[in-house]
């Protein structure tokens, strides 16, 4: 179980000026993080939350992490309407702000923004480059751009976990309450996600509960064949957040053709790092993909199989209990 602690905010004192002071780090009672959230979620009289967030993205008086956080919150609040401000933030001299804007553009941008992102990935390197690369890939997959090459690094995978002591998992249909809750949670963070097109399968793996949303466009008798023709984002996986009795999107599934009737599936974090990868073949209107865990710090070994058939989606596999070696911080 995971537990959080919250900051108790004095709601009766909230005004636009107070929130701006909070963003500047001048209030001990309201941290900038809470102010960002309030500007996005709360209806505060006399406050134009979107305008304040936009100002926060561009205001050099604010600390870089506050500006980078404002970019993320504004993207979720404004959706496609955030694009002009995000393009401006891409030019920020502060790398964390520009990287945050690049990530956000991947979720609300369109093919006409690919060149701007491509320039960034070949330019400064570091987090900006990697975020821009994933944003570019995400747009290509969201829009199914078959004529656009996606330059994604190949991912080394872990060996199959030892069966003894491994956690087994299998996909089932969830109840309607959990399904709705998971879909709404995904939509909250991923504006491009189409709730109305999804089937949901539930996977319990040890203490972790996952809701796997699969786009119906890629199901049925002719659905799987579409995946062998163009890049796509056929699935998003939501993780249960026990603390809030809610969900949050944890993995995005990207598929693309790799040869005749062959596809590659990558399940990546929202920031682009691959977590599970696999390849599969489309035969007789069905796809079977064997998934393995990426050789990445903190990722546990997995051997999974996903079958997409005319009847639905079958998910099964096992997961190890220990993760791949982690990175170590630097000692002071």
């Amino acid at each position, binding site marked *: *179980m*995971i*537990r*959080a*602690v*919250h*900051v*108790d*905010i004095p709601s009766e004192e909230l005004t636009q000026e107070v929130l701006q002071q909070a963003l500047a780090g001048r209030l*001990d009672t309201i*941290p*900038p*993080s*809470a102010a*960002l*959230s309030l500007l996005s979620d709360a209806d505060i009289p006399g406050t134009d939350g979107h305008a304040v967030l936009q100002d926060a993205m561009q205001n050099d008086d604010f600390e*870089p*992490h*506050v500006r*980078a*956080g404002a970019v*993320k*919150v504004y993207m979720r609040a404004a959706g496609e309407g955030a694009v002009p401000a995000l393009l401006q933030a891409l030019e920020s001299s502060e*790398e*964390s702000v520009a*990287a*945050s804007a690049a*990530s956000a553009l991947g979720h609300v941008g369109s093919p006409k923004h690919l060149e701007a992102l491509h320039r960034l990935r070949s330019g400064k390197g*570091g*987090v900006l480059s*990697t*975020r821009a690369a994933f944003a570019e890939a995400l747009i290509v997959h969201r829009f199914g751009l078959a004529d656009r090459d996606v330059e994604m690094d190949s991912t080394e995978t872990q060996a199959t976990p030892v069966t003894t002591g491994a*956690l087994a998992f299998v996909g089932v249909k969830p109840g309607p309450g959990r399904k709705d809750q998971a879909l709404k949670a995904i939509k909250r*963070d991923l504006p491009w996600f189409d709730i109305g097109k999804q089937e949901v399968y539930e996977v319990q793996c*040890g203490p*972790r509960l996952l809701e796997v949303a699969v786009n119906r466009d890629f199901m049925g008798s002719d659905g799987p064949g579409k995946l062998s023709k163009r890049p796509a984002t056929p699935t998003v996986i939501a*993780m249960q*957040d026990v*603390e809030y009795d809610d969900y*949050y*999107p*944890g993995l995005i599934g990207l598929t693309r053709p790799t040869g005749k009737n062959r596809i590659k599936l990558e399940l990546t*974090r*929202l*920031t682009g790092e691959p977590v599970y990868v696999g390849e599969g073949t489309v035969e007789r209107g069905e796809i079977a993909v064997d998934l393995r865990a990426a050789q*990445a*710090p*903190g990722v546990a070994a997995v051997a999974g199989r996903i079958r997409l058939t005319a009847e639905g989606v079958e998910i099964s596999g096992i*997961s*190890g*209990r*220990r*993760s791949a070696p*982690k*990175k*170590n*911080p*630097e*000692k*002071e």
Partner: protein
Amino acid sequence: MPAISINIIRVGVENFTTADATTINNAINTMRSIYSTVGLTLRRVERWHITLAAANGRNVIDNNGEAETLTDEWTVPNNNVDVFVVKLYVGSVAGLSPVPGPCDKNAKGMDGTVVELIGGTTGQVLAHEVGHYLGLGHVTGDSTNLMFPSVPNGGVLTNGQGNTMKSHCFIEP
């Protein structure tokens, strides 16, 4: 006297100021003071950091999933509780921890705590999250208790809670 040791890991170290260092030191003193009321010593505080480049954007935590990922990706190879200190954790959440935290910090799942710097209340957040790691759940009916789900609170621990904490595998004699 039973003792616990922690790793203070500053994430995105370049963004931390001298004032932040003071906030962290004050937070450690607050935690030490709260834990001493139940006979638990804060023994070693080791200082570590992750640079902005290495943090790969995780210096700004966007949701609980990203906090969990941070603890999944990084650890200090010792038997201290890992405390990842970040300057921004979007939303009203100021800290996150598993309950209880595992003895094996390479186990699958969250195996460190994440604490946001929030000025003078950071000490209660730090003590609260390490309390979770040591096995304490929330206390919902008593705002004087450290484990009340929000801060600021009274910062009190009961002897029963102290006994629970002292039974964790990271406790040193």
